[in-house]
């Protein structure tokens, strides 16, 4: 139910942030146990410009400061309010390469339910990628799926307003996480609008930060949580390059594999090839609107002629980081300071050369050669990696269960836990990891709160 004040109530789980991660987490836990859940959201039911000012940051690097708040919406439903709905699952490359501390199978099984929450066709889970029927083993088809983009605030408002074990507190911004040694004891909240002195503390057994790829790291820094870990470092985006390459693709080969229900088609180098050749994942999307004859490997064939869009992961770099600015937000909290550079030009060319060669050798098609310099590399509005998952506290922030190293009861949900960005749009995986975390937390309540 929606509440206006917490009082002295103590919760089992307090979740900070009612976006896709926080809401998926609360949904799943509420279905599996009788745990008392508090869902705190900085925003209100609708988008509010005054509250969204709290997402403003100072920035240096390739993206302007005005870029970041756009993709860090504060309202019930979070950034799903502007989401385009593109979905595809994480590739296996980074798991094969040991960049994740968990096996790929640990997350794959959660995509089925994530697909259902997001209203996607089941092919998004059953056929996330396909190999071509030719010998083109180094090129795979990995489409993006969509249903009608889910606005979490609209779709799940009734569920949250009526559920007896979930309290939703809107218009309250978490300003500090208080810890005593390894245990998080309370969270400080202020009203996002109105009286700036209206600070309250809330208590729970477990706490989950689910306030976005920037917000999670910033909140930990405001509370000086896990200072020995690289909180805020390795911040990533998805480099996008639009219309600086053209593909000619054998129509018969492409037609043999593409299906309906995909929002756009994309090709990738296989995970195994990327690992063997020290490449990161990148997706090359194309359209099937224009057909003209072309010559491939000695034969004249009908071909799809398409501009290509490159969507890539990037190398995690410690220097790309979120820290606390000297400037403050309207609640007098230090704003986020983001220093970020793609540093993607060289990798983009190396990747494209490899892709073009494999595309040609496989008989699928032909690609244009890369320009000397890609004119514009833009972001995808995806904030990844600032509280990365890993095996140890000195090189990562959360462990394989999404728990902050060396704390007993603080967890993180969202794409900030990704140690590798993948080429995939993150929302589907954000939901899948939230469901996985929900199962982990529910396990801790098993017996005590079984339904």
């Amino acid at each position, binding site marked *: 139910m929606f509440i206006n004040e917490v009082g002295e109530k103590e919760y089992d789980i307090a979740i900070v942030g009612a976006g896709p991660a926080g809401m998926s987490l609360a949904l799943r836990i509420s279905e599996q146990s009788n745990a008392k859940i508090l869902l705190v959201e900085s925003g209100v039911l609708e988008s509010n410009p005054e509250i969204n000012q709290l997402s403003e940051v100072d920035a240096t690097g390739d993206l302007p400061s005005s870029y970041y708040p756009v993709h860090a919406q504060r309202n019930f439903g979070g950034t799903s309010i502007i989401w385009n709905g593109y979905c595809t699952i994480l590739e296996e490359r980074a798991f094969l390469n040991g960049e994740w501390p968990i096996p790929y199978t640990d997350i794959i099984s959660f995509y089925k339910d994530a697909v259902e929450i997001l209203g996607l066709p089941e092919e998004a889970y059953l056929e996330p990628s396909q190999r071509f029927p030719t010998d083109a083993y180094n090129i795979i088809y990995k489409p993006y799926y969509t249903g009608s983009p889910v606005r979490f605030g609209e779709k799940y408002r009734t569920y949250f307003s009526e559920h007896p074990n979930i309290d939703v507190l809107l218009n309250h911004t978490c300003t500090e996480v208080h810890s005593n040694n390894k245990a998080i004891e309370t969270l400080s909240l202020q009203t996002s609008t109105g009286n700036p002195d209206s600070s309250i503390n809330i208590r729970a057994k477990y706490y989950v930060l689910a306030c976005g790829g920037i917000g999670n790291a910033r909140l930990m820094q405001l509370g000086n949580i896990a200072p020995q870990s690289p909180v805020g470092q390795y911040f990533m985006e998805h480099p996008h390059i639009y*219309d*600086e*390459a*053209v593909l000619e693709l054998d129509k018969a080969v492409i037609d043999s594999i593409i299906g309906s229900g995909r929002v756009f088609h994309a090709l990738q180098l296989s995970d195994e090839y990327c690992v063997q050749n020290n490449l990161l994942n990148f997706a090359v999307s194309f359209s099937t609107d224009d057909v003209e004859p072309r*010559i491939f*490997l*000695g*034969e*004249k064939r009908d071909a799809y*002629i398409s*501009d*290509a869009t490159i969507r890539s992961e990037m190398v995690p770099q410690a220097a790309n980081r979120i820290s606390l600015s000297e400037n403050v937000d309207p609640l007098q909290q230090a704003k986020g300071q983001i220093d970020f550079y793609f540093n993607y030009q060289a990798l983009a060319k190396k990747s494209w*050369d490899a892709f*073009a*060669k494999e595309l*040609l*050798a496989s*008989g699928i098609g*032909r*690609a*244009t*050669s890369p320009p000397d310099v890609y004119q514009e590399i833009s972001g995808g509005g995806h904030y990844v990696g600032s509280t990365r998952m890993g095996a140890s506290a000195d090189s990562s922030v959360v462990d394989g269960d999404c728990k902050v190293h060396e704390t007993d009861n603080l967890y993180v949900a969202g794409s900030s836990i990704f140690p590798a960005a993948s080429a995939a749009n993150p929302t589907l995986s954000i939901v899948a990891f939230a469901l996985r975390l929900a199962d982990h937390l529910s396990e801790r309540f098993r017996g005590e709160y079984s339904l």
Partner: protein
Amino acid sequence: MNRRSFLIYSGLSAIAIALGIGRYASHSQKENIVTLQPPEPIEEDNLLRQAQPTEALNVYKKIDPVLVNNLERLFDISFKGMAEGVELLPLLTTLKDKNVIDAHDEINISRVKELALGDGMIQYNGWYYSQTEFELYGLAYMAHGTEIEHKK
């Protein structure tokens, strides 16, 4: 202007340059990818050597009409620039030695595909080609293009 539009314009420009200047006679090599560039000093052992001025006029007489016919479907005007820098007979011999052109003057498509798996790549006129494709399309231009010239 997006990349497709750019290529259309640059392709036309490349053809115009090829018609005006005549030769793509050099290449630079980076890893296994060759990028063709405007003329620079010629390597002696390079296949892509300058043709003798009179050779182009005699090309049609040097290729079996059966092969000319088979190459017709691979004709692409954009290879004019490449073909003007190449000697016909060494190129034909190379492709026959690779069994890309068989004893009956047929084009062995399977062999082209097989070789593509191990071929180096060439960047020509803004696109990637396998080495064998590049040679084959150059020959197709020479065969068909000069056939047209001969019939004139």
